[in-house]
């Protein structure tokens, strides 16, 4: 009788399977004096007894060589970092060059901050690399054997790839609840980790190192995130964030207290000593000194870290006759609906989205018009179908023609084209492929594995990557030097994020950014606001964020623009409202230069 046995394939390296029969590494410590104890290896004794019994027998030559090698290793200078020496050949092979500020940060965290720090470098300066270096250093020194990296789910794969490919750290992506105890170096989504049944398992373990990315999500001590991280037992702890403080000095206090309780005292003593109001510190020098003991922030700019140039060009596009007709018709339709919505208290937002889609492409607008018409009541249905007919009959897209011209100019460079709409993305892809360009698309619906494959395809074979907003988050494309914004996001921070994917450390060429905007439309006003009025692209990264936060506009900048559109009765009203907004932003920028919370970070 045939017996079939199925053997499961083990995907992870499970420590417990390998070391099930081995005792713990070290015995109970022997106290030498009041200052230190000595820990003797128990596992070595166990192995010695096993070797004796099993008849293991090497040669005397090997024995002498082992002693010789150990002496040579011991004599080398361990005051320097081990990680760059250990990885020197590998980095040479994969083309990694650690920047001086990254090495300096790793050194400071280990030597001065004893492995607990907030890495608060500006966007694009390589915080992940710094964290990887610190982790690898501790592994090489034998001080870290279990590490947990908590990140937003969208960044898990990137961490996995960076730590494996650049640092040769055998990390695993957490998939099942058994991974927590079986894998030594684990990357997981913080949202998964803080939920049961995972939470209980993780809290029961002690970790040599914990790394939390996007740590500004821990700024509120009342959140589940903060409480979960606070409850974890960890020897070394790194928090990574480009914006350690946004609105309120209390955020800073919560973050620092998570890292090193007592560094800023209790909250009441902190308020008494350091807070005038929630954004104004008292005794900033003393506060900066305390922060400097636990936080490192590297900045872009002259004299610090040199970047390639960012050359930004607004590209005004004259709509075709058909497109103008469509925009005009949609605009009138929306104005009618706005008046109705004020009277009948309907939401106008879907129609504002439609207006933006018209500026992007007739194709995107057509898809929305079709959906709206299917749900609309009879009186609206007719108008929507009329607009749909106008959209469908448009044969040429002025923006697409402009894009093809730009692609011709930047022919020899890999290009990334951003659009907000999947309809426009499909439209762009079709036309680029028809013109003979190898086109790859990237959007939020792709699985993690698919995203990595897409990036690989683009890097190896693609001429152009057409991405929706999700491509603006986390993925690094330093090998690309051209960004084309097919349509403009209404939140300027998102625009900055898009460009930041390309214009970052590791970029060797000047980055060319083209912002397409259709003349005579809402896009023209936005482009004028960003380019001419507030000089968005001249700002230091983080400055815009600070300004928007100061005006409490970070999340609601888009809704603020919607309000402007809703209020304006005609084009000159619209232009005036945008001017007012520009003045407000500029005034905020000037006052920010006097005192920014971010200035506190040393």
């Amino acid at each position, binding site marked *: 009788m045939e017996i079939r046995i199925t053997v499961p394939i083990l995907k992870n390296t499970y420590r417990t399977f390998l070391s099930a029969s081995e005792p713990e590494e*070290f015995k109970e*410590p*022997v106290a*030498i004096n009041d*200052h*230190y*104890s*000595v*820990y*003797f*290896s128990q596992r*070595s*004794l166990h*192995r*010695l*007894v096993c*070797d*004796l019994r099993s008849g*293991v*027998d*090497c*040669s*005397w*030559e*090997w*024995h*002498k*060589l*082992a*002693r*010789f*090698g*150990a002496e*040579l290793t*011991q*004599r*080398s200078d*361990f*005051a320097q970092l*081990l990680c760059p*020496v*250990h990885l*020197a*050949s590998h980095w*040479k092979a994969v083309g990694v060059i650690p920047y001086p500020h990254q090495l300096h940060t790793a050194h400071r965290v*280990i*030597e*001065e901050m*004893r*492995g607990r720090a907030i890495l608060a470098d500006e966007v694009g300066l390589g915080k992940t690399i710094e964290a990887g270096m610190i982790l690898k250093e501790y592994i090489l020194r*034998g001080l870290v054997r279990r590490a947990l990296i908590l990140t937003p789910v969208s960044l898990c794969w990137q961490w996995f790839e960076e730590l494996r490919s650049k640092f*040769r750290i055998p990390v695993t992506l957490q998939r099942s609840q058994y991974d927590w105890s079986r894998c030594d170096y684990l990357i997981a989504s913080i949202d998964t980790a803080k939920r049961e049944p995972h939470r209980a398992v993780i809290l029961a373990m002690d970790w040599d190192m914990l790394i939390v990315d996007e740590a500004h999500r821990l700024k509120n001590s009342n959140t589940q995130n903060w409480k979960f991280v606070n409850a974890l*037992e960890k*020897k*070394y702890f790194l928090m990574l964030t480009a914006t350690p403080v946004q609105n309120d000095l209390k955020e800073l206090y919560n973050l620092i207290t998570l890292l090193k*309780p*007592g560094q800023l*005292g*209790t909250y*009441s003593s902190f308020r008494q000593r350091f807070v005038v109001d929630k954004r104004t510190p008292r005794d900033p020098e003393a506060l900066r000194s305390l922060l400097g003991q636990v936080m490192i922030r590297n900045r872009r700019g002259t004299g610090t870290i040199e970047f390639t140039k960012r050359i930004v060009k607004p590209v005004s596009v004259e709509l075709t006759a058909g497109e103008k007709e469509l925009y005009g018709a949609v605009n009138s339709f929306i104005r009618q609906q706005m008046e109705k919505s004020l009277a009948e208290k309907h939401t106008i937002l879907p129609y504002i989205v439609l207006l933006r889609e018209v500026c992007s492409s007739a194709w995107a607008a057509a898809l929305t018009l079709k959906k709206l018409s299917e749900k609309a009541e009879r009186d609206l249905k007719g108008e929507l179908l009329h607009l749909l007919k106008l959209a469908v009959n448009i044969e040429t897209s002025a923006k697409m023609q402009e894009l093809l011209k730009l692609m011709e100019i930047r022919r020899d460079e890999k290009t990334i084209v951003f659009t907000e709409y999947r309809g426009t993305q499909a439209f762009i892809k079709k036309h680029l492929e028809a013109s003979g360009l190898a086109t790859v698309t990237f959007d939020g619906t792709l699985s993690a594995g698919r995203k990595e494959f897409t990036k690989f395809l683009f890097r190896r074979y693609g001429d152009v990557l057409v991405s929706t907003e999700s491509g603006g988050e986390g993925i690094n494309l330093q090998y690309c030097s051209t960004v084309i914004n097919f349509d403009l996001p209404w939140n300027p921070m998102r625009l900055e994020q898009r460009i930041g994917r390309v214009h970052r450390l590791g970029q060797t060429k000047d980055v060319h950014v083209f912002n397409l905007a259709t003349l005579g439309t809402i896009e023209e006003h936005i482009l004028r606001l960003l380019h001419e009025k507030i000089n968005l692209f001249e700002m230091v990264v983080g400055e815009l964020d600070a300004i928007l936060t100061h005006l409490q506009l970070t999340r609601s900048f888009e809704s603020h623009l919607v309000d402007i559109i809703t209020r304006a009765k005609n084009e000159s009203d619209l232009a005036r409202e945008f001017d007012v907004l520009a003045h407000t932003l500029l005034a905020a920028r000037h006052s920010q230069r006097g005192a920014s919370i971010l200035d506190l970070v040393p």
Partner: protein
Amino acid sequence: MGELQDFLREFCQYIDINCRWTKDDVAILELSDEAASLVDGPRTPGYTCQLALSYESAQRQKDAKLFVPGSYHWDRFQEITLEKARFCRQYVVRVPGCMDTGEAALEADDGQLIYEPHLLAHWRLSYRTDHTTTHRILDLTVNLTSGDTTSGYYHSLLGCQLAKTPLPGVAQAKRRINIKKAYDYMIQDIAYMLAQEDATWALSASNRLQEELQALEKYYDQAIGTAPSDLLMAEKAMRTKELKNRLQPKVMASPFATALVYVPMIIYEARFDNDTRYLRFDPIIGQATGLH
């Protein structure tokens, strides 16, 4: 660099890797399939690689991999060496100037030659503070017959000839001490040695730890004082444990290469009246001890 070359030369000799040198202090290694599998994992086919023994030569030679203490290839070769050298069993067959002939009967003179098993272990001591680690290597040997522990015996053995088989006709003394007990003797010796040493290296680290603990204590006393809770007490205990784990100075001691070495002792017998006295002479270190 001469020592690095010596190490690499010997390593290649034992693994059977063909190794030649260029003028730039770069070693060209031709690894067979077997050697490649040992270095890079199973089923790796043989290949040629270049190892640069200095940063300068690594920069000059584009394809050469850095081979200095701390580099990946150095660490890998050390791992292989330590795995190969885990344990060996050897007999001392010649001691220069003392046991040269290889003939047991001649060497014993009018005494008796007997092999006494010695457990030899090389220990790595890592002195760890909150931000530095220094290492020290020492060897300890425990005579498994008498229980005597000696430090530095290994260097005396280096001058001798050792073999896998004993001199014919030489008896072996019975082990009175098992391996675990011998290990304990070594531990006691190391602890005693450390206790005699200057502890300044640990003092400043220990003081820093106390400062941090006091600051933590103060913070939680104030926090608990205003809003006492079990949660805060538990948190305080956890943070205190973390701090000690991270900042407490400590020494980590692990043996990394061990050997069971059978050392020939010459036992002399002397009669006084009705009393018989024995003398044990260790030809390795030239030391005599009385036996009862």
